[in-house]
């Protein structure tokens, strides 16, 4: 993996804008001339739950096994994203709303059978946030913004402090027991450098995972939502596609068929660093109060 020099990252939400009016993360991290911002559009309405993405990711990135757990959560025995799980397919079985299934692949798509039950399946991944909390709080500069606008960990710099783990509003990044370092999806930074598609998108048989320049993906996603709405799937909505949201828009965004929390996603995440100026102000005032308290305590000299 190529290691670019790591800078402090975007301080707060200021910097050059991209075409859609959002922040251009690569430019605000100091890349003067950079390729377009690349990302994922995960269209969960065509996911069939095959987990090819999970397997391809593990294989390509040589991510170690993290044990088999029979969770009892439908077909999901992976559980959650983490240090050794960079793609995670969620399975939800719920009562099916009255929706024509003509627009969705059949069988096996989200609307299955006539038993009144539908399956929601969604392949989750790091959001590659425009305003990335993990990157902001990293004290070593191990977390890095790439020229593609993605967020990666430089394994040879990370000292395993774990700050990013508590900062990510999506619970994506984790610290691996075996090597003590933080790990997460790199959006296949090594493959991108060679002009290749990330492993998960390449392996996805239904094009549920689409990879490309973020501008194009956002356009395509908006079209897909309109198509689904016209076909009567009124629950279809985009998640993470809006540059005005609490993380400045995600580099990896989703089309969902139910509320985000049903898929284990936070409904309205906000990057913690937006409050940091306020946090520092209170900390400074508190420090000053302690100094004043000490001065008061020593103010009466011995008679």
């Amino acid at each position: 993996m190529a290691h670019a020099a790591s800078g402090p990252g975007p301080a707060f939400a200021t910097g050059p804008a991209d075409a859609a009016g959002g922040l251009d993360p690569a430019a605000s991290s100091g890349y003067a001339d950079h390729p377009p911002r690349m990302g994922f559009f995960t269209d969960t309405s065509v996911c069939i739950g095959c987990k090819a993405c999970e397997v391809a990711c593990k294989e390509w990135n040589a991510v170690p096994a993290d044990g088999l757990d029979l969770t009892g959560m439908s077909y999901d025995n992976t559980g959650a994203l983490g240090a050794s799980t960079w793609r995670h397919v969620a399975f939800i079985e719920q009562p099916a709303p009255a929706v024509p299934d003509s627009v969705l692949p059949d069988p096996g798509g989200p609307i299955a059978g006539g038993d009144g039950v539908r399956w929601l399946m969604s392949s989750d991944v790091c959001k590659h946030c425009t305003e990335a909390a993990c990157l902001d709080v990293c004290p070593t500069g191990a977390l890095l913004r790439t020229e593609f606008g993605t967020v990666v960990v430089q394994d040879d710099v990370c000292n395993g402090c774990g700050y990013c783990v508590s900062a990510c509003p999506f619970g994506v990044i984790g610290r691996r027991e075996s090597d003590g370092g933080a790990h997460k999806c790199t959006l296949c930074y090594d493959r991108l450098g060679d002009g290749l598609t990330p492993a998960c998108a390449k392996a996805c048989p239904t094009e549920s995972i689409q990879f490309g320049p973020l501008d194009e993906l956002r356009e395509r996603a908006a079209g897909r939502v309109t198509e689904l709405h016209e076909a009567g799937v009124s629950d279809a909505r985009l998640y993470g596609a809006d540059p005005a949201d609490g993380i400045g828009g995600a580099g990896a965004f989703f089309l969902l068929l139910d509320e985000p929390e049903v898929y284990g996603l936070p409904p309205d995440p906000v990057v913690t660093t937006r409050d940091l100026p306020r946090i520092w102000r209170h900390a400074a005032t508190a420090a000053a109060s302690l100094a004043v308290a000490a001065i008061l305590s020593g103010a009466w000299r011995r008679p």
Partner: protein
Amino acid sequence: MTARTRRGGREAREASMVPPAEFQSYYGRPVLKEPVWAAPDVPGYLFFGGLAGASSALAAAAGFAGRPELARAAKTAAAGAISLSAVALVRDLGRPARFLNMLRVFKPTSPMSVGSWLLAAYGPAAGAAAASAVTGRLPRIGRAATATAAALGPAVAAYTAALLSDTAVPAWHEAHRELPYLFVGSAATAAGGLGLVLVPPERAEPARRLALLGAAGELLAKSLLIRRLGPAARPYQSGRAGDLMQAGEVLTASGLAAAALGGRSRVLAMAAGTMLVTASALTRFGVFHAGRESARDPGYTIGPQRDRIRQQQGRDTP
């Protein structure tokens, strides 16, 4: 995701009246990762950092008040505590050998980076101040080190609150207004308390005063935190964290009373000091566990975010 709306003023107070209603989740699993930071290392790091920072401030105050014995004790306490704090921090790293990578960059967006630089400046100053005070050597360097440590000490005691608040952990982030005051109060309580343990009360007035001010500040900050956060403060009130916070509060109040009324009794002063030091540690452990609990329960993540969306929608469609 809906566009972000800031919670503040009236809006936040209204929101805090709404109990976290029924929420949907993915098999009840947490949305966030539980902090990988472990007890006793990380709460210990918070406690010893606070004890050190406030002790340095106390040492300077004692010097000014003409109490060299207390000044020497506080300087020694500061040097010992900051060493323990640094050890606890390094022990909690996944890759302790790479500790120095903390000083590879300076990032104001990372309280841990700011804190590492702060410790790099403060630690040696606290050490030199103690060494000079104990050996009586190099008094001029000792005075400069004492002043430096006293100037940086309050920042050392306060930045750890920013460190916890600058996360997605609900109980820590939501409390970002009160946590720094709670932490410096707890730091002053510990430093003053230790002064009372180490030095006879008739020669430790500054320690007693600092302990009283700190304990009062700590109790006040905690009650403000509970009040403003409403249902979001529940992690501080229930379970293991609730027990720790409660025990801390009782000991703080008892220690405060004993220190205020103890007069010249050495025994009472030592009891008061012991209670106050213990109370400060309990509070740090309580805050630490409250955060972990709030990250583990998806309701604390999803509930307030849902409320925010509901309020936003309410505004959009009057």
